[in-house]
């Protein structure tokens, strides 16, 4: 494929899948600028190899992996500057049947998600937002299936514990 063919092919892919990739990147980074940068960087880096990436069968997984790897490095580097955990005290025991409580709980979970380690967060987004199976997540993150299960389990345990801790803080004298 010549350069024009590659450009047209990549453009067509972005038209169909670019939005989903941006949403994935945003849920991973919780930052619109970082998400846009990560997606653009991943696509620009993929351009020279696009034909081969497509031939491998799953460009979306390749690009998500690029976004995760770039974000994981950046996230770890700037860890000390991030303070992503807001006060979610008192939300664990609410009744999620109440729409207001449900939204409050979702907001709390969103804030807590932002504090998860990058790869755990990626696994959570792939499972609970994109609905991917364990083998699909494993292929995307270059993990074993057992590692995917372990990462998701740890992430959910962290979220539960954090909610419960804050509930305890509120009910303590």
């Amino acid at each position, binding site marked *: 494929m010549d350069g024009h063919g590659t450009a047209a092919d990549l453009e067509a892919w*972005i038209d169909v899948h670019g939005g989903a990739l*941006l949403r994935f990147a*945003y849920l991973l980074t919780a930052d619109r600028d970082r998400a846009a940068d990560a997606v653009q960087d991943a696509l620009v880096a993929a351009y020279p*190899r696009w034909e081969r990436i497509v031939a491998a069968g799953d460009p979306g997984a390749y690009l998500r992996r690029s976004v995760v790897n770039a974000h994981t490095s950046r996230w770890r580097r700037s860890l000390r500057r991030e303070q992503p955990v807001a006060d979610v005290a008192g939300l664990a025991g609410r009744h*999620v049947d109440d729409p207001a409580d449900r939204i409050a709980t979702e907001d709390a979970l969103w804030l807590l998600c932002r504090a998860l380690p990058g790869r755990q967060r990626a696994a959570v987004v792939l499972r609970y937002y994109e609905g991917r199976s364990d083998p699909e997540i494993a292929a995307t993150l270059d993990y074993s299936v057992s590692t995917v299960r372990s990462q998701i389990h740890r992430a959910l345990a962290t979220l539960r514990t954090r909610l419960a801790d804050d509930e305890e803080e509120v009910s303590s004298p």
Partner: protein
Amino acid sequence: MTDHDERIAEPLTGALRRHAGEAPAAEGLAERVLARTSIRRTRRGFAAVAAVVLAVVVLSLGAVLLAQDRGGDPVSEPVLPQGWRWESYRGVAVGVPSTWGYGVPGPAWCAALPDGERNTTRPGAVGRPAAVPAVGCPSEYPPLAEREQWLTFADSGDVGIREFDRGWVEETRELDGVFVTLFSADVDLRSTVLGTLRPGNEEIALGCGPMHPAAEGRTYRPEAGAPLAPEDVRSVSVCRYARSDAVPDGPPLLAARFASGDEALRLASAVLTAPEGAGPDDPANCAPEYDYGPELILLHLRAEDRSQEVVVRYAGCEGNGTDDGTIRRALTGDLMRALEPPPTNPGQLQVVVAQLLR
């Protein structure tokens, strides 16, 4: 999945779906991406003109050779004093005099060295994070008569200037999470060296990009090309990377080296004539997350009219060997010896690989 997991799954999905709506819009994304790729192509298109300019622009030898090889735009690169070279580590680069060696013992300076190693004091040396002997020396730095100027890269540290005896000063600066420390009694040299500190790129890093997909996981294979003969190879960039998920801080490029002439031929011969196959591996010796090891080396073999990547994996219990995208080969003693020169010498070898060096 436990009952607890299921109870949190629904609100979690709701949270992610709701906040996904805050993501940037995709309008214009394709145009922005393709515009950036065309800028890249244009920069490469300057090759012929740039090669002429190179003759009068003073750059480090490696940068000159690379720009000629790769068609980079040398005018955009900073100029080092003549006789200096670039050293790169995890996305930053700094210039040092070419007479400086490699390997800094640091606080373990008094530890005994094997016979024949570093019997003379060098004008200076560059050090990267590595295991050091647990030796309690009488002072942080050697006595004056044994003292060398040292530049070290680290992933943590304290920015500032610390004074020692007889005018010797240790200064640390930080850029993009990398801490660069210079120990010297020469105020001008200290200022010049640390003044060159800047974000690294492929030209400065002797043909090694600060990031590379080979460092991102175990599935990467180079793009296959037509077979290269060792005698066709004119130069080799040797790029040592941390595997980004095993050693996670910052860009994974740990060190870069540029080989030409006989050294390039030796490297190319070792890597292109090794027996087809894989290994040596020792799969029972590692936890699964470390099975491919924490680092690898990427070779860029350059001939007159083309280049070829070769991945060399040596630090894990599985997946050891080389891969040029077409043929996988086993590691050999010749190859491991050809990879020994610093600063790109392997920082970790499995026992079964180290045995090749016997």
